[in-house]
């Protein structure tokens, strides 16, 4: 098991490095460098080229590409992500203030969609071919076909503006302290974010459950005379669970992508919101850093998924 984990990590490291390199290339390709961000344009126009050049040299900008990349990379590993071009705030600070909001939203959506999606998927698989199954299939299809932000708009109109049950957006008010105070703010965005995920998990859980139920050991369990619910849940679902766990790991990109848009719809002050405003104001260092972090999150998640699958299903390890 340990060798398996080590091997996985060893594959991951060069990939992470290549991605860092590509992101840095992107950063280099974008217009402007540190000097043009540090000095306001009027002053820059009146400075003479020799001064600018001296400043560039002192910042290390005149050095060859690989040296600059290396210094950027070693800073990155130590947690110095550089500075935002809007106001020069350290990017690490921006991330630190924005990340909790995103994690809060994403974890609620992930838990909710997993539980509901698995339940509906199993129900659908057990009543295969019935009217309920057909209805669930169509509902699942609707869930992946309707744009998330459209769901968000309808939810705001109905539940926030017309019924007034929940606030329109934002994460909290100044007087709110505990999570309980903020809960009403969390309900609409997390539910809307869950819809697409739930539909995906449901479809997957259904096919995985159907697959498990057609195996021989289910027949064995049934012929032993076990009650039907035990056969379905203890024998069928346990096996069906493995692919579902994998799927949940691979949902992370969907979750990140979804939260980028949903945070914008509900003005949720998370990373996604920051990312969009950075793209709009062409704050490239922030854009690149957030992109890089999201890739790293996906890579780590896929590593965890692989390890979990290997733990649950010994065939994976032996197959390697």
């Amino acid at each position: 098991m340990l060798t398996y984990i080590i091997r996985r990590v060893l594959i991951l490291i060069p990939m992470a490095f290549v991605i860092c390199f590509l992101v840095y290339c992107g950063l280099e390709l974008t217009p402007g460098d540190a000097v043009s961000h540090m000095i306001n344009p009027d002053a820059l126009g009146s400075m003479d080229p020799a001064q600018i050049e001296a400043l560039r040299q002192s910042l290390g900008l005149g050095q060859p590409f690989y040296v600059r990349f290396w210094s950027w990379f070693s800073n990155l590993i130590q947690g110095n992500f550089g500075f935002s071009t809007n106001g020069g705030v350290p990017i690490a600070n921006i991330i630190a203030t924005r990340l909790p909001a995103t994690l809060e939203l994403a974890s609620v959506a992930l838990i909710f969609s997993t539980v509901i999606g698995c339940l509906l998927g199993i129900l659908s698989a057990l009543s295969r071919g019935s009217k309920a199954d057909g209805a669930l299939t169509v509902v699942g299809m609707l869930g992946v076909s309707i744009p998330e932000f459209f769901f968000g708009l309808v939810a705001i109109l109905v539940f926030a503006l017309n019924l007034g049950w929940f606030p329109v957006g934002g994460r909290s008010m100044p007087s709110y302290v505990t999570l309980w105070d903020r809960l009403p703010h969390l309900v609409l965005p997390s539910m809307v974010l869950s819809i697409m995920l739930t539909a995906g998990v449901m479809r997957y859980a259904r096919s995985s459950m159907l697959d498990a139920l057609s195996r021989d050991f289910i027949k064995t369990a049934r012929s032993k005379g076990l009650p039907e619910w035990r056969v379905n849940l203890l024998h069928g679902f346990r096996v069906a669970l493995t692919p579902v766990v994998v799927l949940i790991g691979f949902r992370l990109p969907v979750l990140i992508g979804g939260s980028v848009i949903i945070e914008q719809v509900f003005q949720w002050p998370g990373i996604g919101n920051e990312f969009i405003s950075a793209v709009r104001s062409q704050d490239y260092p922030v854009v690149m850093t957030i992109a890089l972090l999201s890739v790293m999150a996906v890579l780590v998640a896929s590593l965890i998924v692989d390890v979990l699958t290997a733990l649950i299903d010994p065939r994976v390890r032996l197959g390697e």
Partner: protein
Amino acid sequence: MTESAIAKPRRRTRLDAQFDRIRAREEAGLAKSRGGSRTLNKFLNNRLAVIGLIIFSVILLASLFAPLLTPYDPNKIGLRDMLQSPSWEHWFGTDRTGRDLFSRVLYGGRVSILVGLGSAIFAAIIGVLIGVYTGYVGGWLDTLAMRVSEIFMSFPQIILVLMLVSILGQSLVNLILIFTLTGWGGIYRMCRARMLSLREEEYVLALRSFGLSRPLIAYKHMLPNALGPIMVNITLSTAAFILQEAGLSFLGLGVPLSIPTWGNILNVAQDIRVLQTNWWIWLPVGTVISLFVLSVNFIGDGLRDATDPTQQG
């Protein structure tokens, strides 16, 4: 065991009813093969897929023949008719600058469908070209292609798209380019996996022993065996790209606002006043997008069921 089966008749299921119907038709001498392609018949028997095909055709044709269906120019500003609610004159009402929304939805459909379908087809071409050849040949070329696709696919798609938008700038061509660049990975992997299993088939061995060149074997003889899944993949990624375009344009980061697209029409709904009082600006467009994507997804699922015998139920 048999006693209990006799004592308690089995509950009739939908399948029993279906078999009865088939038997009745057989006895009446009606059960003849309809002829034609088996795949086509199977597709047409799938109710959801047919519904999807109908909705798809209606929206597509309405967009293509937009000039015949509406007399209004989608970009013509009419300050006298600002924010009118739906009427006989303006079926979907008008927006904040008095542009007719029905014609904007129709003309917007052209661009949105173009972006979705165009990107899906380009992505498929790249994915198939790379996947079929490297999957068949294997070796270092295959490893390289796999690593590159892994790098592309480890980015959450919308993050990569927005990153490229911020580097390349906003335009229609750029958007299709970016979608193609970010979307080829899925179909590449599918093709490669298919080729890996086809590679072991005997007919491939036979072709190789005839001395056919590798591209010829891969593209001419093996590729047709993967066409079913490729079509399914193109359909489903069209749906995904249309959703993404709508999302990006809604944020104001997709197609430039001067070109009407479904997402660009929805863009104004970020304003809470528009959302609350001028429902006709965003609700019909949102419904059209949802219906269109839904229909494309139904078609994709129908195609999958019709072409892939292992995906039953």
